[in-house]
């Protein structure tokens, strides 16, 4: 089963809008502007895995500055006051929030993992038995942010 028919890029965009409205841009002045550029570089990322009736991963990735600004917005602090621990925590929570909302759209019987945060580019992580099936790529205040979904490939079909 392809999840693309269940969770579309528009669905991801709607979830992201809710996150921005609640935490990152409550005044509605600096939205995530979609670019569709799936080659844009990132510097940090976080992943939650989904298992059960659907298997795969949701990956939130961004530039370090976007992560720092996100942490500052979450914590109501200045960006230069934010530490690495704050950034990791917020990156994990962002993947968790979007992943939780994605899970709600999948067939019943899925489980969401705790987030894994890596303060290194998205390309530093590999999902050898999964392929990217959808995503949202954009700029927030001039900084790269992406949310992508990776679906596990059945053994034997990966080649």
């Amino acid at each position, binding site marked *: 089963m392809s999840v693309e028919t269940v969770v579309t890029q528009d669905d991801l965009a709607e979830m992201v809008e809710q*996150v921005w409205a*609640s935490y990152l841009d409550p005044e509605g002045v600096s939205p995530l502007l979609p670019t569709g550029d799936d080659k844009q570089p990132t510097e940090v990322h976080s992943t939650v895995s989904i298992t059960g009736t659907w298997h795969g991963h949701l990956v939130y990735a961004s530039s370090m500055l976007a992560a720092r600004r996100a942490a500052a917005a*979450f914590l109501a602090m200045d960006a230069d006051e934010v530490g690495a621990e704050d950034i990791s*925590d917020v990156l994990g*929570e962002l993947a968790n929030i*979007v992943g*939780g*909302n994605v*899970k709600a759209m999948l067939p*019943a019987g899925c489980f969401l993992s705790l987030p894994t945060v890596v303060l290194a580019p998205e390309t530093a992580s590999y999902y050898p038995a999964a392929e990217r099936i959808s995503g949202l790529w954009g700029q927030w205040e001039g900084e790269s942010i992406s949310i992508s979904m990776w679906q596990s490939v059945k053994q034997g079909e990966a080649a």
Partner: protein
Amino acid sequence: MKILIADDSRVMRQIVTRTLRQAGFDGHDLVEAADGQEAHDKAQAEKPDLVISDWNMPEMTGIEVLRKLRAAGNDVKFGFVTSECTEEMKSAAESAGSAFFIVKPFTAEQFDEVFSPILG
């Protein structure tokens, strides 16, 4: 009132605290727990009036905490603030005795709606 906020994300505990304040619920005694086991232990030891819990936490999930508390005869008002919201989870929460189910991302308006009857 004493409120226990259980979430493995420190940032999210701060956001819950801030959102409570934004929703007008100031002046309560707040206690925090960083995983399910700590949530369970503090719910027993600190005797809070309300527990606001994440679902997916290390050591013990929120629903396991709630079930364990109820099994021990603790009937503290308990509910969830979680990014996960499926009918099966809502149903499991209700069956276990959950008083509310708030989905992340949430707003101060939602907190006001849910917590006004509880916190006044």
